[in-house]
């Protein structure tokens, strides 16, 4: 999903995540509804809790059977530093990875990523895409918002373009490439 600033990308992702009610229209979901994981643009966790405490809390809220083990697994999976340091003192990249780890706790079928790589270094970015691809390879879907056309070209199967809250294009990447009107950053 691409579009200039203020196009409504983050709002649409929040609506898809069921975190916001649409002012018009509705979201159709298949039955049984898929588990949806959402990584908002800004890090989303409790700053005064350590990464482990955050993960254990959300694992319990998700109703996971073994929250401590799930937290342990996720810390290793996203390669977050151990320790009791408050999450608020983590680097921006680590905060973003903690948000992703919290989202992945529930093993979502659909992963909604809102500009997930903006604060990540190249290594972390590569790791994130590995995780995203694993979700797709499991039969799930990844919807991601980006301003990075290289990422769009490399990872997107379908492209959605928004401008001023309006959908101006939806199609495969090759269709997008063949539609100059959809190139809002041109």
């Amino acid at each position, binding site marked *: 999903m691409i579009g200039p600033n203020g196009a409504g990308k983050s709002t649409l992702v*929040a609506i898809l*995540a*069921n*975190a*916001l*009610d649409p002012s018009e229209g509705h979201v159709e979901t298949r039955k049984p509804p898929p588990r*949806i994981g*959402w990584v*908002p643009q*800004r*890090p*989303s*966790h*409790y*700053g*005064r*809790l350590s990464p482990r*405490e955050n993960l254990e*809390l*959300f694992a*319990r*809220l*998700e109703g996971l059977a073994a929250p401590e083990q799930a937290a342990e697994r996720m810390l290793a999976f996203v390669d977050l530093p151990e320790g009791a340091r*408050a999450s608020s003192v983590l680097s921006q990249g680590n905060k973003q990875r903690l948000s992703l780890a*919290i989202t992945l706790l529930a093993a979502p079928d659909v992963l909604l990523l809102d500009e997930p790589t903006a604060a990540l270094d190249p290594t972390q970015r590569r790791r994130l895409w590995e995780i995203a691809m694993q979700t797709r390879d499991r039969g799930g879907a990844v919807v991601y918002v980006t301003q990075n056309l290289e990422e769009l070209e490399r990872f997107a199967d379908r492209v959605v373009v928004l401008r001023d809250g309006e959908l101006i294009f939806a199609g495969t990447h090759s269709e997008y490439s063949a539609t100059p009107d959809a190139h809002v950053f041109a």
Partner: protein
Amino acid sequence: MRAVALLLGKDLRVLGRSSGLLAALVVYPLLVAVIVGLVVRYAGDRPKLALVDLDGLPNVITVGDAHFDVKRVFSRAAEDVDLVRLSESEANRELANGDVLGIVVIPSGFQQQVRGMINSPSIQLRTTQSALATRIVEKVQALVYAVNTELQQAYIKTNLKYVDLLLNGGHGSFLGNNFDVIGLGRAAQELDALSKSSDPAVAAKATQLANFVRQARLALANTGASLSATAHPIQLVRQKSGGRALLLSGQIQAYAIALTLGFVALLLSAAGIASERDENVIGRLARGLVGLTPLVGEKVAFTGVVAGGIGFLLGAVFGLVIEIGNVAGGEPWQRLPLVLFGAVLGAAAFGALGVLIGSLAREARAATLLAFLVAIPILLLGLVPSSVISAAGWVSAAFPFIHVARLLTAVLADTSFAGGFGREVGWLIGLGLVYAVLARLSVRRLLS
């Protein structure tokens, strides 16, 4: 319910890691409570008044043979009012400026009327329309009462000298006229002698008059007590007993606890709900982990637990101070569970209001500031007696503070508290529910 408990645990853990904030939340409102208590206790306690002496009063006025100590009366009055001697023009200017709150004027001819003992002299009092006018009138009335008491003693003493003259005879003077009086004692002796007269008519008249003189002497002998009783039909005798100091009274305890938990609860709940948005977690929670209604409930419960606990702790500390100090009356320990109940219920009602404030402000810093700005008038309004400004009573009834204060007063100070306790519990539950519904309606703002 499990999700609410998990979030409650998280909030308590986070608060426990902010010990500085927690200490400030307790110490600051307590400090405010003490300052407000002192202001309420001592504001206008010793108002500054101008004394304009148009008669040039001496230190002592002589009434008959008795002396009226003017200086002593005014120095005693200085315990209640700050009397400053000024000229009339200076006094008028300072009253207009507000430097003095009233002018006490001793008019010319005052001494002459005091000495004359015929007309009552007057003292004039000029005040403005200030809020303390009633209090100043009371203070000056107390001053006039003190002057009257002194004068009555002087008048009675002088009058009794005339009575003594009537009884025992001698030389006297009144209004500048000198005279000699035979006195009832000698008159009785003379009449007794006449009653032995050989003339039966003279003897009979003399006996009759002698009887009257004896009765008159008996009656006059009681004049002193009668005059005192007439001058002071009722006397106020002050007996000091070892009761509680003002700061340890049940009512002050109740207001201090209510003030503290009001501050703590409003700030905690407003900042608590807004920080869920600041940390960008509320969207994650609202997606199904914790609904918005349970989230509001959790913040209300969190506030009830923390602020209610602090309120209860304060009640217990007050009780310990009273026990250690062996203060008369003691602490009603058996009612302490009701203090806990009242503090938790009151804190929860404040918490619902705080969540509403936090939802409207949306950001934790703005929410804290807004909660602080809202707390000050709500809490101070509850301290204004509704008998003075009835509108203050109506407005403060719409907020939890006055109901918490009354509930705790009923528990800590009232002999029979069930009626007042039940009414205030009803108020707090009702207000808490109304604010909780409003908070639930506005909390959606945090998602956008």
